């Protein structure tokens, strides 16, 4: 039954990430969309991280888990480095993780 909540959350979170990223990449090839979803998703996951109800499966594992992505984040960094865009690669790594951690902390405090 818990898996059903994951299905519903991921069914919304995954396409929401894709639409935001696709829209923002029209304006810039830089991964602003992935940065935005990763920060927002960290906040949402923080809000429901310690929940014992179905909100944990629905929001933390399903929605925020699928809304945010580690694989695209890592590929963006590696590919930018490969194109000798070193500043962009390092800025993406440091700023995403820094603000993502702050967002998760805020979510956890508000929970």
């Amino acid at each position: 039954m818990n898996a059903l909540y994951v299905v519903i959350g991921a069914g919304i979170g995954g396409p929401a990430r894709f639409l935001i990223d696709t829209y923002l990449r029209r304006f810039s090839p830089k991964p602003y969309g992935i940065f935005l979803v990763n920060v927002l998703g960290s906040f949402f996951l923080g809000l429901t991280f310690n929940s014992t109800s179905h909100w944990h499966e629905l929001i933390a594992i399903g929605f925020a888990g699928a809304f945010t992505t580690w694989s695209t984040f890592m590929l963006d960094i590696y590919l930018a480095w490969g194109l000798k865009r070193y500043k962009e690669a390092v800025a993406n790594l440091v700023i995403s993780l820094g603000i993502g951690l702050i967002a998760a902390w805020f979510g956890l405090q508000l929970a």
Partner: protein
Amino acid sequence: MKAVLLVSAGSIAGSLFRFALGALFPGDGLGTLIANLAGVALASHLLVVMERRGITELRYLLLPGFCAGMTTFSGVTALVIEETGFDYLLLTAVLSIALVAVVLPLSRKFVKVRA
């Protein structure tokens, strides 16, 4: 619209896989670590396959769908703050970058462009 549905289906499958790994390896973020590393390795290989073979529709299902759904950035940040500390972040980031740096060039070497 078709692309969105493919991404949604892939994300659901990837998230269920991550959920199952979390149940199999509970505590200390081990399930999340395995999901993220497996997703990074798979995405690195698939990116090259899709580039070389031009598989567009399957790309939606597998890359922004399955791999992005299986891996999670928010799981890492929340775990670091609430449970594991910064060692976990360092471990995840270093192993992930190492995996991309090994898998992507190897795939570029062995996956041929379809004639």
